[in-house]
């Protein structure tokens, strides 16, 4: 598919560079070291971090932000470690994902991946309790990802009933884990989210 040059957004790369984690994007000289060593590419050959960076540099904003690929990154830091230009690709992907989340919230693009829902549900537990409340996270994530409490619970049951039993049998999921473990000074954590949240 040919690139429609008139649809490119030349400001996109600057937007990424201004987002924490994305600062080094302009240093990329397209050598592909990131992609060659990527453990995700090994399994999903179409996943190509080098191409995502190239598309971003060209200004293919919508294509990048709406691609499923940006949500496949496992943040394992292999690319960041090996990059000869110190682009910090793991962090860069995170910056691109956050721009995508923001644009999706504003209704400008459509994101198919459920990962933003999961990340948001995770952040919500933290904001409320100061620590991860796994049960709360699962409930919120499944409810939102499956668009409803009942369908969410059914999907959760399908995915996690066996694991849940296993954890329960080994004393890793008891009545205590049904309730959140809340820190004392949640106000401090709330303030962090208010002041630092994007």
């Amino acid at each position, binding site marked *: 598919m040919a690139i429609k040059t008139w649809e490119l957004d030349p400001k996109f790369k600057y937007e990424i560079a201004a987002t*924490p*984690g994305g600062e080094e994007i302009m240093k990329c000289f397209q050598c592909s070291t990131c992609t060659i060593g990527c*453990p*995700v590419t090994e*399994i*999903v050959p179409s996943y190509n971090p080098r191409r995502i960076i190239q598309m971003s540099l060209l200004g293919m904003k919508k294509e990048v932000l709406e691609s499923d690929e940006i*949500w*496949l990154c*496992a*943040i*394992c*830091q*292999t690319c*960041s*470690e090996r990059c000869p230009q110190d682009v*910090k690709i*793991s*962090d860069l992907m*995170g*910056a691109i*994902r*956050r721009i995508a989340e923001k644009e999706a919230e504003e209704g400008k693009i459509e994101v198919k*991946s*459920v*990962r933003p829902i*999961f*990340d948001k549900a*995770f*952040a919500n*537990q*933290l904001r409320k309790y*100061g*620590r*991860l409340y*796994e049960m709360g996270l699962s409930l919120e*994530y499944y409810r939102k990802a499956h668009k409803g409490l009942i369908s969410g619970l059914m999907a959760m049951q399908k*995915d996690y009933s*066996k*694991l849940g039993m*296993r*954890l329960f049998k*080994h*004393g*890793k*999921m008891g009545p*205590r*884990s049904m309730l959140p*473990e809340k*820190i*004392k*000074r949640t106000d*401090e*954590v709330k*303030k*962090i*989210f208010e*002041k*630092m*949240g*994007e």
Partner: protein
Amino acid sequence: MAVTKLAYYPGCPSGTHAIEQDISTKALFEKLGIELVEVEDWNCCGAVEIEDPHLVYALNARNLAIAEKDNLDIATPCSICFYNLERTNRALREDKDLSAKIRGIDPALDYKGTIRARHTLDVIVNEVGLDEISKKVVKKVPLKVAPYYGCYIGRPSEIGFDDPDNPDSMDRLIELIGGEVVPFSQMKTKCCGGPLMMTKGDLAFEMTKKILEAAKAKGADCIVTACPLCHMLLDAKQPDIEEKYSIKIEMPVLYISQLLGLALGIDPKKLGLDKNIVSTKEIERKVI
């Protein structure tokens, strides 16, 4: 040995699916003569789900500040918590403006940057040291072990404490206690897919399956790891992976603190070995 007391950051899974790591780390450090003082009212490090680095720094500035009040270095048995604590430490030291901004949020974040963040594995190998540990070894662990390091122990190298491509801190411990390290250098730092577990489960399963199958093919009696997320996939999810691909792995996965604890003569119950999902009975039996 200089360190006698550390601020202990257990991390969120310490009360649930990584309870055996928490139990065994505490038992091990007691045996090593290092007091662990839990960071008072610690908060979550943000794990890999909080993607805004500045938010991660602010969250961890609070944890670091609490430990700093007691003038103690902070240590955690979780690789992800370690990564977040230590990268915060670096960023706040290097970026004065950011540091000032975070301090301005609340007095609780007034971190001055005077302590270190350590992985407990780093403390064991590089602070206590192999010589000191060898004096305390009372049992032989003649097992074939696949050491799985995962991501953040060595990567990124400005934060990690071991080699990014060929880490060996666990290898050295295994050999010290009479174990044999199986050839595992292709796999030891290859990501298990942990961060994708909930949102791209199939992909995470593929990634973990490779590690499990490699360990099996090399004839390992068990895998050891130092991260609760790796452990969750390798151990708790192992039966799901076996079912999905119709394969048999049956590979015990121990935390390094559990394996080392056995060699130091700590009771298996005190190491939480009954909590691992894949049975560790065979492993316990082989310890002499």
